[in-house]
């Protein structure tokens, strides 16, 4: 662009100019002036065009940098991999060591419980490991599977459900096998419990935890206060029974939960639930009048009411170092049907209350008290073998756990279990629970 010859001439001219002026040759001067003027104009034009071009180049370069940056942002925000569509997989590894002063012939005196209940076997055991696979199915559905791997090498399908994510009016429909929304603890997986075991009332009335094959419809109210109402129908797989092979459903439940905040440090939730289920051949361990170990079988109608409440506190809502959680539930069950071969009816209740205190970032301690009320039981003609003892079982438990991160936990639990009349079982549990894979998010 720049012509060196022209440049030289211009520079030379600039220096020569004073000399030329001295020469005072007006004609020559005029000529020179004209030439200079011409050159000046030509250079000004060139410089101007150069400036414009420079500006254009700068703009383009800036745009390129911007594009590059936004590309980098895109790339960093969305890592791509061939397995990017794989669902979230989480594995919970759990193991327990148990030391108990009594044998494992567990039953709850006076309560026809059913299901896999009790403190489990002594010494080392695998505990319950869980494998969970969850993901959005598409823009309408979310689905998941949770397998429970039991110490006896059996695999159980704890949950396998799909649920809607895009229904209007705050509605959610869930289908498949899932933990019922009744009560507070019922929906929570074992690895989120604050103790090694579930409350006695859950063991006595819900076979530890009630999960069923069925449908659930929930409605979340459009209010500032949390209000959720739900209804479920199912086949009635309560307490390890198969559920009924018949048209329609054998279990119905209704529940409502309300919740909210009090200031920035407190939050709460309370609920009321009702479950009606018709178990068939629900087997429960018991001791008969002659102190012989027997297995009873119940077929009939079972109605359970649950009232639950939980309150949580953390200074400014920051639970990193300090928090308190207090929860309690009351369960009432009335049953009518046949036990073994004769008529049976019962109206019984139970409750528990527990508090968890987190006193350091990695440490928590908790205390729980369980109580069951024998209520009224009519054994009918079974009275010959089964006596109404009017015994009220109870249990007190204390635990301390250490959580090096949100993915690992080691726990010590001491319990004094008086589920059996005249027998006190002093229990020591040491448990670990580790979570691998996808980052879990815990329910309230």
């Amino acid at each position, binding site marked *: 662009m720049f012509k060196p010859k022209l440049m030289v001439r211009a520079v030379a001219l600039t220096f020569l100019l004073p000399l030329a002026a001295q020469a005072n040759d007006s004609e020559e001067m005029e000529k020179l002036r004209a030439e200079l003027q011409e050159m000046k104009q030509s250079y000004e034009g060139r410089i101007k065009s150069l400036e414009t071009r420079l500006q254009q180049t700068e703009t383009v370069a800036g745009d390129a940098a911007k594009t590059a940056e936004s590309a980098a942002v895109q790339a960093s*925000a969305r890592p791509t991999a061939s397995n990017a569509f794989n669902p979230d997989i989480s594995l919970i590894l759990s193991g327990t060591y148990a030391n108990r002063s009594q044998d494992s012939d567990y039953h709850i005196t006076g309560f026809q419980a059913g299901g896999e209940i009790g403190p489990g076997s002594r010494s080392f055991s695998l505990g319950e490991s869980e494998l969970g696979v969850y993901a959005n199915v598409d823009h309408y559905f979310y689905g998941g599977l949770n397998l429970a791997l039991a110490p006896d090498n059996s695999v159980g399908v704890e949950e396998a459900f799909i649920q809607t994510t895009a*229904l209007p009016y705050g509605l959610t429909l869930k289908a498949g096998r899932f933990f019922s929304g009744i009560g507070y603890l019922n929906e929570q997986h074992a690895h989120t419990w604050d103790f090694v075991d579930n409350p006695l009332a859950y063991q006595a009335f819900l076979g530890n935890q009630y999960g069923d094959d069925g449908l659930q419809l929930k409605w979340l109210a459009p209010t500032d206060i949390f*209000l959720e109402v739900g209804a479920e129908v199912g086949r009635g797989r309560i307490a390890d029974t198969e559920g009924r092979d018949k048209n329609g459903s054998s279990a119905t439940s209704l529940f409502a939960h309300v919740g909210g905040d009090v200031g920035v440090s407190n939050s709460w939730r309370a609920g009321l639930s009702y479950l009606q289920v018709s178990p068939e051949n629900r087997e429960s361990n018991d001791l008969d009048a002659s102190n012989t170990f027997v297995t009873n079988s119940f077929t009939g109608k079972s109605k359970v009411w649950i009232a639950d409440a939980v309150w949580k506190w953390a200074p*400014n809502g920051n639970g990193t170092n300090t928090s308190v959680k207090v929860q309690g539930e009351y369960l009432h069950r009335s049953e009518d049907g046949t036990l073994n071969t004769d008529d049976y009816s019962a109206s019984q209740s139970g409750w528990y209350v527990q508090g968890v205190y987190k006193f350091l970032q990695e440490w928590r301690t908790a205390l729980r008290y369980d109580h069951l009320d024998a209520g009224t039981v009519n054994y009918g003609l079974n009275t010959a073998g089964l006596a109404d003892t009017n015994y009220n079982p109870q249990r007190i438990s204390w635990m301390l756990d250490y959580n090096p991160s949100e993915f690992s936990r080691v726990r010590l639990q001491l319990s004094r279990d008086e589920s059996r009349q005249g027998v006190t079982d002093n229990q020591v549990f040491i448990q670990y629970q580790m979570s691998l894979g996808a980052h879990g998010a815990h329910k309230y």
Partner: protein
Amino acid sequence: MKKCIQIISLFLLIMAAQAANAAINVFACEPEWGALAKDLGGDKVNVFTATNALQDVHHIEAKPSLVSQLRKADLLACTGSELEIGWLPVLMRQANNAKLQAGKPGNFEAAHYVKMLEIPSRLDRADGDVHPGGNPHIQTDPRNIAKVGEALAQRLAEIDAANATFYQDRHKDFAQRWQLAMKRWETQAAPLKGVAIVVQHKGFPYLEDWLGLNEIATLEPKPGVEPTSSHLSEVLTQLQSQPAKMVIRAAYNSDRPSQWLSEKAKIPAVALPFTVGGSERAKDLFSLFDDTVQRLLDGAK
């Protein structure tokens, strides 16, 4: 029957009241995005901020009140980069608000609009609480606020098309004021360039990148892991050969580890607001950075 009608009419009334209130409901996961939404949306938005500056956003209780707020939200404004992974997914599944699902205009993740720092080259939980998408504490660099502000204004205009020009005008005004303020902060903070600091949690890479601060140690042995006494003494030893001007923590962090180091190493412990509401003075985004720069300058004296 009469009661039934009463209840139904009550619900209809509630719904009608909701419909009458036409402003856009914004659910902001963190105070900085709540403040930004207010700056950009003015009286056209109702902003609910789910957390406060004294809470650790990695660990938030999935409270029932948050479910109710999510249900009625039109726009979810969060940091993303898995900062909220421990609580937001479970809330979203309970609220089941179709407008807020990933990929919908109602789901806004600030981390998508800025250049992420500290993207881990390997993912292993043994390295502590690492975020695959990069360090999520992007709000400590005002240049990021500017970028997110532009994107959020666009998003508001997309969701509430009737008021699109309103949001664009407000953003133009905000962006101008923000550029001026940034120039001021950068001039004020010039002496901080190259200053050596110790941080409690790895929460400040963006601030360091902006002001040219030099982070030489962290009090947490690994991100999210509580400082141990052995690690603290290692840091103290390191400071003897490589001195730092101050030790920095966020308002929500426990003050014990940085106080300990402050006393032993005779350097000031500086609590930064970290987000809006993190100090008396940090009432909005502007005063957040006024206060942050001031506290750093005081610490470096």
